[in-house]
């Protein structure tokens, strides 16, 4: 059966010069950046330096840090913060938001479908083995009905811009996407540093995200639960995103629990409190599927709760995100998301997918091997920017080593054209310089699909680098959606 594969043949997309978010090609400033440009030119450089230092001290004191794997145990680092915001005009954001809603709906519909009727597979839109043989596919979820049919309650959808109004989805993060605490803390910091800029223009607020998240989580409580108890489940304080787990629990005013704080009795989840057991209805879990329940998945997990998945399958507790969402954000499924949108919603995709070569296909493999120096090659199951080959900045030797890895197991890899990510200015030692950025909006699905305007802007701090992941030396910026 013929399967539509959305790839373009021939020369990969390329652009002569990168799209600069702030400046026009002739050096002029884009309209929506003008108040910022005026502020920069009107503020003495040493005052800006002072503000940047103040920001560092404050972030350290507040403890907005992340743990770095592979370094000394318990090491904590600051994610570098750049003071120059990423600004998007509101009308442009409204188009993006529409596209994000559409995408989130289709992905949830897909997840429900593959654990129930599998209509999309039967219609031949996606190869069955890609889904059912996927390591992230959880047979435990087959036939299980989750409240509202929602699987990806929180989705972090990474976007990049290649040109004016030309946004691409880089990947969908549907397991436990992180970074929203930086979005909120960055905003708090900017309002503290440059209140005058907020007074001068209309910048859409993001501070209500925790309320929105709590409302969303409550809306997916098990049937019949009137006033649900919601908790955040964390792997503990040595996890890289622990700060965020604690932050969100605090902002929502709910308990932050570890696996050992929960126990299951009669298929019901309880937490251990000073006043005895208390029932838990919704768990916003920030632990991967594998570690959730030693009885269901990895038996060596010390982080999980024995019996949790069983209680979940009986509908006694809601897990957000659901078990088994990883199959939908897998890089081997990513090329089919536009097809999902057409299939479930009967609409044309509003956001572009990056053309993707699937190396399990002979033709794509041959093309990729012949064009390694132009392409980005990624592991299908990888994340966090690890294990990638970035063709244009690689050495002959790296390419040869990678070529061998590809040939050993072609189906473990995909390749994409090197997108010319847009750049945004950042402060550097002397003045400002352009660096590549991406944007991660956080899309909440429950009773409705909701999001706060903007998201987390990540920036590759090294000159010319395309990798924005915090684990790889990326930084963050505040994101402003501005009414123009």
């Amino acid at each position, binding site marked *: 059966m013929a399967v539509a594969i959305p790839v373009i043949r021939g020369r990969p997309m390329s652009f002569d010069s990168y799209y600069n978010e702030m400046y026009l090609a002739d050096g002029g400033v884009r309209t929506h950046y003008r108040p910022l440009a005026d502020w920069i030119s009107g503020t003495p450089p040493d005052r800006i330096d002072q503000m940047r230092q103040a920001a560092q001290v404050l972030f350290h*004191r507040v403890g907005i840090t992340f743990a770095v794997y592979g370094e000394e145990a318990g090491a904590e680092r600051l994610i570098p913060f750049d003071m120059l915001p990423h600004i998007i005009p509101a009308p442009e954001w409204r188009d993006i938001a529409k596209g994000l809603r559409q995408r989130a709906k289709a992905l949830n519909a897909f997840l429900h479908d593959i654990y129930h009727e599998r209509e999309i597979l039967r219609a031949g839109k996606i190869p069955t083995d890609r889904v059912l043989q996927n390591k992230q596919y959880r047979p435990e979820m087959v036939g299980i009905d989750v409240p509202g049919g929602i699987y990806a309650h929180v989705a972090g959808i990474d976007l990049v811009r290649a040109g004016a109004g030309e946004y691409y989805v880089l990947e969908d993060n549907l397991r436990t996407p992180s970074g929203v605490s930086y979005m909120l803390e960055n905003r708090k910091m900017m309002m503290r540093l440059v209140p005058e800029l907020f007074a001068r223009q209309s910048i859409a607020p993001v501070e209500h995200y925790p309320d929105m998240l709590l409302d969303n989580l409550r809306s997916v409580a098990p049937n019949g639960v009137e006033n649900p108890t919601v908790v955040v489940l964390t792997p*503990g304080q040595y996890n890289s995103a622990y700060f965020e787990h*604690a932050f969100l629990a605090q902002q929502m005013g709910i308990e*932050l*629990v570890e696996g050992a704080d929960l126990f299951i009795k009669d298929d019901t989840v309880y*937490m251990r*409190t*000073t*006043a005895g057991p208390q029932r838990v209805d919704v768990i916003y879990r920030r632990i991967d599927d594998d570690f959730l329940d030693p009885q269901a998945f990895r038996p060596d997990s010390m982080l999980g709760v024995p019996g949790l998945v069983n209680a979940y399958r009986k509908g006694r507790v809601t897990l957000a995100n659901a078990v088994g969402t990883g199959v939908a954000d897998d890089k081997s499924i990513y090329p089919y998301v536009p097809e999902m949108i057409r299939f479930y919603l009967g609409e044309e995709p509003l956001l572009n997918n990056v053309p993707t070569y699937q190396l399990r296909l002979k033709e794509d493999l041959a093309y990729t091997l012949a064009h390694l120096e132009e392409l980005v090659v990624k592991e299908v199951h990888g994340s966090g920017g690890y294990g990638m080959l970035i063709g244009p900045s690689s050495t002959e030797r790296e390419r040869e080593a990678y070529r061998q890895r590809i040939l050993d197991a072609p189906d473990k890899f995909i390749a994409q054209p090197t997108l010319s990510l847009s750049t945004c200015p950042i402060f550097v030692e002397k003045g400002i310089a352009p660096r590549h950025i991406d944007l991660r909006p956080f899309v909440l699905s429950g009773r409705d699909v909701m999001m706060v305007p903007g998201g987390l802007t990540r920036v590759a701090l090294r000159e010319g680098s395309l990798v924005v992941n915090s684990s790889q030396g990326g930084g963050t910026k505040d994101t402003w959606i501005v009414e123009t």
Partner: protein
Amino acid sequence: MLSRTASNLYWMARYMERMENTARILDVTYRMSLMPQSAQFADQEWFAPLNITGTLYPFTGRYSQVHAREVMVFMALDPNNPSSILSCAKAARENARAVRGSVTSEMWEVINSTWLEIQHVTEERFSNDGALVFFDWVKERSHLFRGVTVGTALKDESFHFNRLGTFLERADNTARILDVKYHVLLPSLQDVGGAVDYYQWSAVLRSVSAFDAYRKVYRDVITPVKVAELLTLHHSMPRSLHACMAEAYEIFKTISTPYSGEAVRRAGELYAALQFGRIDVIFSNGLHEYLTAFLDRLGELGSEINRSFFNVSYA
């Protein structure tokens, strides 16, 4: 509230209070060592901080002699000494970090910046007058922590467990300070009420910020019996055993649950004994014996708190 959260808050407060008390003990010992006296007696002084914190053996295992500088470094900055000021600051922070959602951001910032700053303190600080500045800083951090707690935290269960930790740790520390000083200063019971070194006893008072309070309460010369009375039975002296247990008992009544009957009873028993105690009776039975028994019962109360609130076994 979550049992683990209650436990973390309780221990966070205990470590902050312990940090302050260790600084107080070192501060007063250092001041006393500056008095004119023989070199031998001066070194003798430095056994007291080790005895109070029960770290004499670990110390002598590491150092051949008990000298001022070594003791100060060991008790202030040694990461291998679990009761050092550094270790307390670290433990307080780890407990706070585990429950960041249950402490206000101001509380967290105080604890976090204390930990960040103390890591920059070096041994050289103890070579000159830097020691006293450091001890003052530690005390201020602890004052700040309590002030921020009272000024920013919701008066809910989190607050109560936090405060419970403060008062129980403080009672423990006051009892230890008094016990050890009593031994150093009064080698035999016959000396009670006899001629005592005014400076030594006033130093004991100063170590718990009670010197001015003594003057106000007694308007009299400093005697060991009255010092002991002030630090054990006096209800309005904030670091006395009586005041600490009064606070603790009030908290117990507020946080009591169907599982905590025994803990509340024990706290009430300790409180009542202090409320109705008499200093002459205590002295006739031996102050040391009294304080040892108090510390034992406080330790039992701690275990009972664990059973009643932190590790409840549900029937």
